[in-house]
């Protein structure tokens, strides 16, 4: 399990990539990725290309990110989800809160 982050050139977009299992063990690193910043981004992207598994604590972490990013005004995209991950997100109807692809 690893969490990596990259900023866009103008530091307005933050992309956080998860590889391996996205579960409770990732909690602290995931939070650090979006909390420990010098400039607050306006857009967030969560890249799940290498994420093998997602559980309810991962869903909770996404909600925390959304809350941090402004709640109803947050702009968060979740990209590169595998079909398994998409299924989990679909059952929870998280597409109503996040831009999922």
């Amino acid at each position, binding site marked *: 399990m690893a969490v990596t982050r990259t900023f866009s050139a103008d530091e307005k977009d933050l992309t956080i990539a998860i590889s391996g299992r996205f579960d409770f063990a990732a909690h602290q690193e995931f939070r650090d990725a979006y909390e420990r910043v010098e400039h607050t981004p306006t857009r967030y992207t969560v890249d799940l290309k290498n994420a093998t598994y997602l559980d309810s604590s991962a*869903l*909770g*972490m996404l*909600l925390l990110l959304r*809350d941090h990013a402004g709640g109803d005004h947050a702009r968060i995209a979740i990209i590169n989800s595998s079909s398994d991950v998409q299924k989990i997100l679909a059952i*929870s*109807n998280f597409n109503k*809160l996040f831009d999922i692809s």
Partner: protein
Amino acid sequence: MNMSTEVAQGPLTVLIADDNMTDRMLLSSIVRRQGHSVITAGDGLEAVRVFAEQRPQLVLLDAMMPVMDGFAAAREIKRLAGEALVPIIFLTSLSEEQALVRCLEAGGDDFLAKPYNQVILAAKIKAMDRLRRLQATVLEQRDQIARHHGYLLNEQRVAKAVFDQVAHSGCLDSPNIRYLQSPYALFNGDLLLAAFTPAGDMHVLLGDFTGHGLPAAVGAMPLAEVFYGMTAKGYGLQETLREMNAKLKRILPVDMFCCATLLSLSFQRGIVEVWSGGMPEGYLLRGDSGERVPLVSRHLPLGVLSPARFEDRTDVWPLAVGDRVLLLTDGVIEATNADEELFGVERLLAALGERNAQGEVFDSVLSALSAFRGEYRDDFSMAELAMVQPDYLKPPALIYSDSGQSSPLDWSSSFEFRAETLKRFNPLPFLMHMLQEIHGLRPQSGALYSVLAELYSNALEHGVLGLDSELKRDARGFAQYYEQRNTRLTQLDEGYVRLHLHVRREGEGGRLVIRVEDSGRGFDARKALATPARERGLSGRGIHLIRQLSQNASWADDGRSAQVEFAWEQQG
């Protein structure tokens, strides 16, 4: 809980057992010089006795001793030491491999050759002491963990006892319900609640909180209280959902939520109303055709959205006697076997397809799971609800908490609910609350609520919203009907429903007259009354039900006004 308890370094008490006085004296001096205190023994038996009495931390043991040799003494000392590590260093000039093997087999941890090398001895004592302290730390932490685990289990026991008190007002033991739930499901975050409404409908909730242990259980209690409280008062599914969502949103941290499926089964109307957020598919199983209708999660789980954004849209399905609804938590689909395969949706659907007689769906899923896993486990929750005849179930009598002395017996009241109110307010619980003040009427609460609900829904849906009751003839029309209902209600900007209540004494008892008027176009009440109930099926305005449960039911003003009466003989 501070787990960094490490056993401290310090001078040791060392037992030196050697039958040679010279060697004993020399070794004692060497060891004392290294800062430790020394006790001695001259043979194996004495060594064991001295060890038992004084419990040194380290033992230097000559392999060849009279009376009891070093090997036997070592075995006995290790036995006396128990779980703790007491390092034994054999003093030996034995060079053969055999002898050294004997040392190890007897429980020796190291050797020191004669003539003694002080530097080597010091190094060995230090290394052995480190191991000793490590073992001691491990044991202490293990005991700490065991203690804390004991406290945790106790806390859970208490929490469960409190919860069981909250949950006692449910009707999970109703004959039309089959369910499986581990006694400690609460701590897996699983929640299964069922309760009757005053009209005799049944509300059911299957929930799955995020997290485990006490955090999951703690959210369940406020949720259960809202569910039971509102259901008992006659609130509908949507109002109850809104309150539950608002409560969880308010009290739970951002990353906690509750996936849930809620059902309202109406035996009188032969329908089931469903809301599902975040749960795996439930299934509606038709008794006659074997058709399987998936009940899909359309919503976000409870506790995620703010009250303003919460969506309470429900789906309504017709349900005939013999039809069932099956609900389950994701513990079923995610069950794994020894090869770490998942049970999965395909196996579940296969198990559902296998049932061939009444009541076997539940069992076929259970046996498919047990066969898959090779064992029976109950770390998931499952409930099967059957649609039965309206009078088959006997909901318990409502319990009233007042003294029964004061009762209003001569009054009238009128209400007009207009568009804005009709959109978002269900007046029935409020009206029932008022009417329950009339003690003589209480034995008929069930019928009273059913009739009021039927009259109100007719006035709203067929009257104000203009929905065609004939649509509910078949399943497709059914879905259309409820879709239209939602759309028209959202768009409603004019219209009204009026309610008039009139209560008066009559002999020893009294009489309640209810009149309901709506702003709709009316209908041909006489024609509807003439059609036998059987032919109409699900469609129609429940007119026969109203006539059955109340007195002097009549319609006027082209069907826009309905009037019913309830009478009672005694004041209660």
